[in-house]
């Protein structure tokens, strides 16, 4: 083994190691210590460019593709309105608003789209491509809590704001909340809190509930929330059964309900699973049964019009909750329905509504912050109170980045007057009834952490 010395080669191995370490420390130290120090610099800063790019990451294939298609329609409409085209939609009713119809901060809004495939890994890959290749300044969309939580985490690591689309799991703004993530949509706890009193009024205090639950974060937290709210009104929880997502045929899970002694079936299913399980439950005659002297009833805690359309006549008379419904008569909802209806020929879904609102809220926050810098935009969203966007007075709570607003309890309409008239709003539950403390046990364990601007 040859030994290099200062005398022979001027450098020993130890010298080389020391020099490498010193160079690394000098080169790396400023970046490490100051990556958040320059408020003016941040990831994908549009600088002097005349446009700014947003990333809309929605399911374009897979079980929630129809919801994704509606989200994309809403995003496109929001971009159109932000750029001063069309009738302005809810930009005309939003209060307060800094939006001027000249893009965001004077820059024309452009967008790229990605396909989440309703799979976390595909959604992350798609968001990563948008951030790294397309240079988007914000990512929005998603129609599954698993996807939303995965993409929210990615945006936090990258230093981009994530404006969540349809995600209903408590965990999104609970144990998995992130400083860079914001949710306008309501959550499982709120569904439970809104539904409890309505169910008590409709079906009384003595019921045995049987839960069929989608086996992932959203199903688990919704089941937990519904058990809490129904037991609070005196119901008993007979059995809870987890079902695989995308099971297709639920008959083997439904038949045990027949002999269980339960008189209420709570379907913690969404999308295709809800359509299939509800259809099959009705086929097995559950709605015609009488148990314990009670008529057997089914509850679908999270409803969407698209889903209800898929389930057809089976939804008649079934209670559930929703974030928004196109039949609302406030000025914001009417402006949005008119704008969306004229553009596409049918009313928007709740998924479309939340995505449209999130885009406007992001744009408005940028205007108020006077920058696209994620941490300053996030600060502008935190604690922001607004109205005129279809849900009444709303607040983005600073502690967990969850929007607090009224919740709608809906029921499958007995006598629909049109193909879109499937659900009727039976109660608007006030915000105070669905609000909870930031450290509520169902949301415990998470931490927003530090905002990351990706610089």
């Amino acid at each position: 083994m040859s030994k290099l010395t200062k005398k022979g080669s001027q450098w020993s191995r130890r010298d080389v190691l020391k020099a490498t370490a010193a160079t690394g420390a000098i080169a790396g130290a400023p970046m490490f210590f100051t990556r958040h120090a320059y408020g003016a610099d941040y990831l994908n800063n549009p600088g002097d460019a005349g446009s700014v790019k947003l990333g809309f990451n929605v399911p374009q294939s897979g079980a929630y593709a129809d919801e994704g298609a509606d989200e994309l329609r809403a995003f496109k409409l929001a971009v159109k309105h932000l750029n001063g085209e069309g009738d302005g939609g809810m930009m005309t009713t939003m209060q307060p608003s800094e939006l001027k119809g000249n893009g965001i901060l004077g820059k024309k809004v452009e967008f790229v789209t990605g396909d989440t495939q309703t799979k976390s890994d595909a959604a992350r890959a798609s968001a990563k491509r948008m951030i790294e290749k397309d240079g988007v300044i914000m990512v929005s969309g998603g129609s599954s809590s698993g996807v939303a939580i995965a993409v929210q985490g990615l945006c936090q690591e990258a230093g981009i704001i994530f404006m969540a689309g349809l995600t209903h799991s408590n965990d999104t703004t609970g144990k998995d909340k992130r400083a860079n993530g914001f949710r306008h949509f309501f959550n499982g706890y709120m569904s439970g809190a809104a539904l409890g009193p309505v169910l008590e009024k409709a079906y009384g205090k003595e019921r045995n509930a049987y839960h069929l639950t989608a086996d992932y974060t959203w199903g688990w937290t919704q089941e937990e929330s519904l058990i809490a709210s129904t037991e609070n009104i005196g119901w008993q929880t007979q059995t809870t059964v987890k079902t695989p997502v995308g099971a297709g045929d639920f008959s083997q899970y439904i038949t045990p309900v027949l002999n269980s002694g339960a008189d209420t079936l709570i379907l913690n299913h969404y999308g295709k699973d809800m359509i299939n399980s509800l259809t099959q439950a009705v086929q097995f005659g559950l709605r015609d049964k009488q148990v314990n002297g009670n008529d057997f009833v089914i509850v679908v805690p999270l409803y969407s019009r698209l889903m209800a359309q898929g389930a057809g006549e089976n939804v008649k008379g079934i209670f559930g909750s929703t974030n928004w419904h196109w039949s609302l008569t406030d000025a914001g909802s009417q402006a949005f329905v008119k704008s969306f209806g004229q553009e596409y020929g049918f009313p928007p879904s709740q998924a479309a509504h939340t995505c449209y609102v999130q885009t406007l809220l992001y744009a408005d926050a940028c205007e108020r912050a006077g920058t696209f810098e994620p941490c300053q935009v996030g600060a502008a969203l935190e604690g922001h109170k607004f109205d005129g966007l279809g849900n009444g007075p709303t607040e983005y709570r600073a502690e967990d980045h969850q929007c607090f607003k009224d919740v709608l309890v809906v029921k499958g309409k007995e006598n629909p007057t049109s193909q879109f008239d499937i659900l009727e709003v039976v109660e608007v539950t006030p915000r105070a009834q669905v609000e909870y403390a930031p450290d509520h046990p169902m949301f415990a364990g998470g931490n927003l952490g530090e905002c990351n601007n990706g610089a």
Partner: protein
Amino acid sequence: MDSILLQILNGLDKGGAYALIALGLTLTFGTLGVVNFAHGAIFMIGAFCAVTMNKLLTISKKVKDESITFFDAFKEQPYLEIWFGDTGAKIVEYSVPLSILLAVPVMILIGLAMERGLIRHFYKRAHADQILVTFGLAIIIQEIVRHYFGANPIPQAAPAIVAGSASIGEWFGLGPNLVYPWWRLIYLVFALVVLGSVFAFLQFTTFGMVVRAGMQDRETVGLLGINIQKRFTIVFAIAALVAGLAGVMYTPILPPDYHMGMDFLVLSFVVVVVGGMGSLGGAVAAGFLLGILQSFASMNEVKSILPGIDQIIIYLVAVVVLLVRPRGLMGRKGVMED
């Protein structure tokens, strides 16, 4: 007792669908030697024949929906109802059974086109090539269906007369909770009739005899001057027809979507392997067996002892069967044993 009987019925029902698909897969493999991963897509096309028939029967006149004032919305009133009143509505109601009339020619044509246009070019290629090309074909078919019909399931209602449940418990003096949907019972009977017909066709006709002989020894049958290839093409079309009809009749049970073929394909392949490659009887027996086991594994009592067993039972049984009987339950020596 009631719950056990219900799970047996569930299993038979599900097993019926598995057996019908697996029968077609085995026929294709036994005759043409082709591992056809597009067979699930054929099942899905059958289901979409029902959707198409329903759409054709409900071609509608657009009438402005006055209840919506925000924008121009339209109600749809089927021409059949406008022209024929209640009779028209009745025809629409029976769209699923009627769609068999559409499915029969469509599935035979698709089967013939698939075999003549694509599969025959892969007869002498490796099984891996056959799997790749048929899998690719399945993806293309499902994406075409998604493009035209969307991704959400499209519910198809059974005729109102069989939309409810049969009180089986009352028939046999058992508990009142033993009820089962009429359409599922019809599906079970339908599956048994189709399976019986295919077996009878292969067992009791000259055509079937030649096909069975060809499955045993294709070369010798050819040497006798019989155009076995032509018969195998017809068998492929029959396999497509069986899968397509299974798809049509399954639509009131499971609202069809573009991905349903893939969901059934994997399970049906396990059924074929468990039954024994190339064994028609094995495919049917394994279809019903695995359907029943899957249903029982979903019972709460079973899941409380073995959580998650419902997700793996089929694959677990496949492993055990292949360990004990490497050729499957009724597999023959020499099949896929080059």
